[in-house]
């Protein structure tokens, strides 16, 4: 290899051997462009996002007539996946505040989720002048294995004795009309892992609430059979799911701003796929030709 001058390397080998750092640089440049040149972006809303939106609207309508039902935000996500789960949480909280549906925040797996959701709720509460304890409550983190989780499903107050700030749960004004999980019409589980399974396998058959999920894009495909069966009512899949939900709320949140960059990044990945494979197929065809000549 040493003696050969660089120009004599075949084009298809050079096509396959682009230095990874150049690829990283192109990703950085492409994703940065929309930060300086905002590109308006309009998404088609997928049926699974619309179903989730309609479910929250339906709860808001029913609350006007019948007994008040609440929403439980199961925040099973950590800072590492905040890029996708945070805009999803923000879009849902915006919708709940706007329609006056009261909600509770908790997590039975990750300590960080309730804290980050609390920050989002406080930021959006200023816009709709909602107050903690009256319009929303935060149970904080309880690590629950199977036994404790079943106890929580059967009797919430046995496991949740204090709220996130340490005040006894009975003193929170909103909790007066919550007897247990049966008073929740929807559990919206935001996670980057399989945390939704506990709610689907163990809690739903008991308390008969609907389940919506806000998941990172990699988990999206594994939710599809649950949507098909009706166990999960609707889903926000990754940043594009959150952007579509923001579009339904017609607000321009963090997700919508990010879609311009997603656009360019995806096109670059498809080009990279094609480049790599053109080089590969060309070199394989050349090897076959060489083998034929040798024989």
């Amino acid at each position, binding site marked *: 290899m040493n003696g050969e001058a660089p120009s004599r390397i075949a084009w298809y080998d050079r096509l396959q051997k682009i230095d990874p750092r150049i690829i990283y640089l192109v990703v950085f440049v492409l994703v940065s462009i929309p930060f300086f040149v905002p590109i308006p972006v309009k998404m088609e809303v997928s049926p699974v996002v619309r179903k989730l939106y309609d479910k929250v609207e339906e709860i808001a309508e029913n609350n006007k007539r019948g007994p008040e039902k609440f929403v439980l935000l199961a925040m099973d996500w950590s800072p590492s996946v905040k890029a996708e789960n945070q805009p999803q949480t923000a879009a849902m909280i915006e919708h709940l505040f706007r329609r006056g549906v009261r909600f509770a925040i908790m997590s039975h797996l990750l300590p960080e989720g309730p804290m980050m959701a609390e920050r989002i709720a406080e930021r959006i509460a200023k816009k709709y002048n909602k107050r903690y304890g009256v319009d929303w409550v935060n149970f904080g983190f309880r690590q629950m294995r199977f036994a404790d989780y079943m106890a929580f499903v059967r009797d919430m107050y046995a496991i949740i004795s204090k709220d996130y700030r340490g005040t006894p749960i009975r003193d929170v004004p909103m909790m007066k009309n919550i007897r247990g999980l049966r008073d929740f019409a929807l559990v919206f589980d935001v996670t980057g892992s399989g945390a939704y399974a506990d709610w689907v396998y163990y809690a739903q*058959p*008991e308390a008969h609430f609907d389940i919506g999920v806000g998941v990172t894009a*990699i*988990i999206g495909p*594994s939710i599809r059979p649950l949507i098909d069966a009706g166990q999960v009512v609707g889903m926000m899949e990754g940043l594009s799911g959150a952007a579509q939900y923001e579009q339904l709320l017609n607000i321009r949140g963090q997700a919508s701003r990010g879609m311009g960059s997603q656009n360019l990044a995806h096109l670059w990945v498809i080009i990279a796929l094609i480049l790599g494979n053109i080089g590969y197929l060309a070199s394989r065809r050349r090897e076959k030709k060489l083998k034929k000549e040798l024989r």
Partner: protein
Amino acid sequence: MHATYTMLILTAVFSAPIVLYILRARAGKGEIYIRPIAGLSAIDEAVGRATEMGRPVLYSTGLSWLSIEGLCSVAILSHVARLAAKYDLRIIVPVNSYLLYPIAEEAVREAYADAGKLDLFKAEDVIFIPGQFPYAAGVVGIMHRERVAATFFFGYFAAESLILAEAGSQVGAIQVAGTPDILQIPFFITACDYTIIGEEFYAATAYLTHEPTMIGSLRGQDIGKMILATLTVLLLVFGLLMAFAPNVFFSNWLLDLLLR
């Protein structure tokens, strides 16, 4: 909400074959056939190639802890270690969980002892690296420094599977991977030469270790899956019958039976 009568019957229908075949297999009665798992022949091929090149082999148990996946991964590790010992090859085993680390070290030591080459075994080749991304960075460093000829990824993997598989293909090693977690399999398929998918991972352990419990359990599970398949086909057929002859089959009685 408690089990309906149908669920009680189905609990027995699905659990009985599993327990029955485990007990039969442990009593040594009846030979159970396990279809060859393509990935396993790829392991032998990879170790063979590493011997030709005389480079060491790397076996990663991923982020597995003291779980069933972790123990299955160690079972496959002892098979690979036995092969490596036979060909006087060096095997490097980075482990992520402090609980699994002593068990992995013991498995490699036993493999070299069985081949009568305990002197070749180096305890520091079994390395403990905690943390998800520090583990990935550490393993990538070892691959580049040792220029390993073959890499094996068996056990539980999360997002770092992409970094490991990518680095392996950069070093030009033959790669064989296997994990029950479906989400990481696409990244192993793109970068590895062969990938063992989902439940095949447990079947591979049974195939290698000939553990009666595992083999019996596999047979019981297959019967459970066959029951599920027949139930699905029956539901389909009754659905068709209901459409063609609405008055005869006024409702899908199988579905009603299942839901009573």
